[in-house]
């Protein structure tokens, strides 16, 4: 069996999973309008305060030697190592890193000469983490657009099932950059207000930055905090368009169909991708209905965090695990009135409930989709 266990979230809402869960449970929204260093115009984003990173990282290393994403990743992975007590040097331990753009800021801002610009390469970025933690295995880097995070968790499960490793830390991270903001803006995909996933008045995405880590393990003792198994997980392609999702949710439906959901799973909710773009949310609603999941509650956490790209799948899985542990359904922030044609039911208020499993889904550029089923024993 493969379990999802110790974890961490670093975002605008805190530096630990607990801080993040408590903030979300109080309906605190991390997305705010800000003037960013590279732009005179306001962007509605979820940003981690630099002085916070600085003060926390100073205990772990010399900030001159590491980029922002490296510092955040070291903080996040370190938290999971501390909590779980697993040995990073063990040959049966692996790091899988999920990111879309890694150290992309090395392309835009001149850095101090202590940081080699070749670390803009994702493998070189991962090597920096390997060296910091003395990992015996070269980290595996997954870069598969917005499904990277959940796909990395599915890949970790497959690695463990094949018997190659016992403990895998999946870390997902991306930072806010002019690079991604300008790109999404050119797609006219950004919302100037906090986003409203699945709502009739949704106008687009907020971007956010975050790093989140989770231990995937075959060791039931290490998994006792959540006692939650990864039952199944699949990815699939729409084969339709490189930026627009299938109108009929084909790829996502194909993933959900393969999960083999049984009547006894008592699914509490689906943690959807829910970016709040008109096409994405519409597509998801259709896929959920096609997969006979209309009666299962749905939330999107993008209303709190914006879209954190390579971190999103990990972060949203971690919060969903916390939600499962606490038997509490998290409200889909920003949602007021249904604005999609597929029949789905959004979580309108935080509430206690009894359930034993949840589904995490994601979809992204390149027509990719992924879904995974998590169940408490």
């Amino acid at each position: 069996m493969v379990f999802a266990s110790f974890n961490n979230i670093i975002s605008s809402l805190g530096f630990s999973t607990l801080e993040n869960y408590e903030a979300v449970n109080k309906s605190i929204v991390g997305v705010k309008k800000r003037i960013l260093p590279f732009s005179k115009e306001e962007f509605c984003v979820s940003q981690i305060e630099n002085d916070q990173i600085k003060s926390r990282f100073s205990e772990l290393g010399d900030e001159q030697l590491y980029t922002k994403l490296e510092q955040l990743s070291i903080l996040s992975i370190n938290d999971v190592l501390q909590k779980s007590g697993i040995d990073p040097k063990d040959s049966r331990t692996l790091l899988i890193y999920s990111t879309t753009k890694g150290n992309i800021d090395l392309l835009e801002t001149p850095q101090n000469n202590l940081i080699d610009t070749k670390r803009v390469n994702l493998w070189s970025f991962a090597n920096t983490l390997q060296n910091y933690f003395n990992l015996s295995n070269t980290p595996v880097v997954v870069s598969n657009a917005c499904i990277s995070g959940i796909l990395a968790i599915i890949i970790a499960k497959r690695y463990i099932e094949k018997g190659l490793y016992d403990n895998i830390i999946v870390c997902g991270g991306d930072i806010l950059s002019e690079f991604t903001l300008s790109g999404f803006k050119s797609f006219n995909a950004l919302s100037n207000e906090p986003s409203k996933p699945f709502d009739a008045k949704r106008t687009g995405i907020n971007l956010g930055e975050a790093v989140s880590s989770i231990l995937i393990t075959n060791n039931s003792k290490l998994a006792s905090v959540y006692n939650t198994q990864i039952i199944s997980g699949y990815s699939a392609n729409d084969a339709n368009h490189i930026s627009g999702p299938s109108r009929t949710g084909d790829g996502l439906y194909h993933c959900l169909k393969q999960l083999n959901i049984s009547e006894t799973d008592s699914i509490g909710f689906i943690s959807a991708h829910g970016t709040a773009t008109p096409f994405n949310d519409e597509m998801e609603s259709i896929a959920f209905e096609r997969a006979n999941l209309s009666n299962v509650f749905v939330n999107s956490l993008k209303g709190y965090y914006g879209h954190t790209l390579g971190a999103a799948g990990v972060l949203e899985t971690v919060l969903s695990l916390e939600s499962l542990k606490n038997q509490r359904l998290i409200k889909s922030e920003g949602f007021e009135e249904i604005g999609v044609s597929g029949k789905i039911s959004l979580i309108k208020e935080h509430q206690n409930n009894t359930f034993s499993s949840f589904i995490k889904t994601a979809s992204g550029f390149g027509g990719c989709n992924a879904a995974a089923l998590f169940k408490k024993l």
Partner: protein
Amino acid sequence: MDALIEKLKGQIIEQLNLAEVKPEEINPDSPLFGEGLGLDSIDALELIVLLEKHYGIKIEDPKDGKTIFQSLRTMAEYIKANGKG
């Protein structure tokens, strides 16, 4: 107007990488989207970039693109009415 239309043909072929399309194959009154050139949603956004880059016209609401980009002729008319160049 005709000169502008001819100029636009070349610019569209270049900006949208329509390598297998010849300028004379584009009818100025045929719809740009749907059948014909096989343009998609990214192309629609690229046409907005084209207007800004070559003619200094900023389209704030991409929904306006639907009427502006109906055909080459509507596009040329819009540039004539709004362009700086």
